[in-house]
């Protein structure tokens, strides 16, 4: 049994936003198809560090475990990715796990991504279909538009694109690629397009699309392979037409 395979995991821990950070190392029993979430669960089951010290379970967000809810984004070996799809067998050990660095820390690996939801509200990332009476059927959406919109609708607001963006940092309010791509999605939809100019106006405001500097990291980091750089370019064109020519052509 001496050669039972082990997995060494190092986790950056912090009991609160103002508490000092520390690293704890864990030695876990290897299992087939093990991912980083399983590692964190195993630690919760038996919260003892590699050198035998008793500790507390690690705080982290996760839900669906199939890369569809967007809650378990974290830094794994220094890179932003979803913990549920990060397979231990494909990672260099010791596996270093840290919280996302661009969002306020809550505890351990849990961060507060409220900023993204506030940004989604600013750009009105929804289609208004509620009224005090039946609004009837909406306009038909061509299959071509549906095909364009579908990949954009896969966004899970995980925050990976913001995490890797050099323009998102403590000096900037940049809303990031995910939000811009959502503007494109909702402006594509014929009913959503009724609020098109409001969304574009929000993207000219503080932290708007002008803060993109075309490093294009977002598109590499996106776990859902959303064509974020295409979205940014397409929305950029709409925004400047509205900003610079709006007073001429309405």
């Amino acid at each position, binding site marked *: 049994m001496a050669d039972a395979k082990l997995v060494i995991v190092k986790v950056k821990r912090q009991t609160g936003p103002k508490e000092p950070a520390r690293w704890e190392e864990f030695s876990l029993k290897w299992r087939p198809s093990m991912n980083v979430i399983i590692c964190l669960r195993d630690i919760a089951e038996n919260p003892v560090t590699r050198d035998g010290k008793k500790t507390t379970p690690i705080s982290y967000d996760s839900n669906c475990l199939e890369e569809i809810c967007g809650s378990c984004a974290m830094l794994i070996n220094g890179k932003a990715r979803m913990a549920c799809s990060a397979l231990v067998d494909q990672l260099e050990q010791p596996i270093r796990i840290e919280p996302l660095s661009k969002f306020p820390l809550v505890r351990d690996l849990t961060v507060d991504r409220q900023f993204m939801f506030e940004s989604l509200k600013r750009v009105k990332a929804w289609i208004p279909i509620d009224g005090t009476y039946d609004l009837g059927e909406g306009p038909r959406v061509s299959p071509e538009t549906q095909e364009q919109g579908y990949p954009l609708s896969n966004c899970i607001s995980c925050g990976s694109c913001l995490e890797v963006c050099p323009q998102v940092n403590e000096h900037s309010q940049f809303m990031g690629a995910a939000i811009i791509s959502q503007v494109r999605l909702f402006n594509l939809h014929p009913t959503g397009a009724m609020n098109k100019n409001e969304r574009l106006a929000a993207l*000219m405001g503080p932290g708007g699309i002008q*803060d993109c*500097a075309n490093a*294009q990291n977002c598109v590499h980091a996106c776990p859902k392979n959303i064509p974020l750089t295409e979205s940014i370019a397409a929305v*950029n*064109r*709409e925004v400047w037409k509205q*900003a610079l020519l709006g007073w001429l052509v309405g």
Partner: protein
Amino acid sequence: MSATETQPDSSYLLRKLHSFTGILPVGAFLAEHFWSNSAALVSRAKYDATSEELQTIPFRLLVEWGAIFLPMLFHGGYGIYIWIKGKSNVSAYPWVGNWLYTTQRYTGLIAFAYIAWHLYTERWLTHGKSTYENVAQDMQNPWYLAFFVIGVLASSFHLGVGIWNFACKWGLAATVKAQQAAGRFGALVGVTFGVVGVLIILSFRFDWHPFSAYLPNK
């Protein structure tokens, strides 16, 4: 929608202006500058004639300040502000675009410092009447020569990447394929400008005029 909501905050317009001035007039002036200076590749006399032509344009100061100096100052100054507001992470994410993001900042600063020096020595000290002889003499200093080469390459690189950025940021290239094509075009411009710029420098340094055969036989 209220009227205030449509008012873009000034950072949008300033960013757009920064992007635009990089191509027009700054990038266009670089093209004009290399075009005019390549007269040195033909002969000293052609260079001096071309220089004189430019040095005697009407409303010269107005053109220089309005179309060259002020746009460059704005592009460079606001560029530094943009640099300070960003936070490079190329060591964690060494993707090509991220490398270009970082090098675009350094080459911009090098180009800005070089252009300031170049203006001081070849525009200010010569009272705007620089000749082939002035430039050729400056080039005899090896430090000056090295600064010239670095400055020309940094400016060419910065313009090449800038063309790609411009195409993406104005949505002129809005698909992956179009952005790749814009990138190739930017690379072509950057390499062409770099090569031509270095050839012009060599022409001054070694009194070398490869196109002198174009001149009518005497």
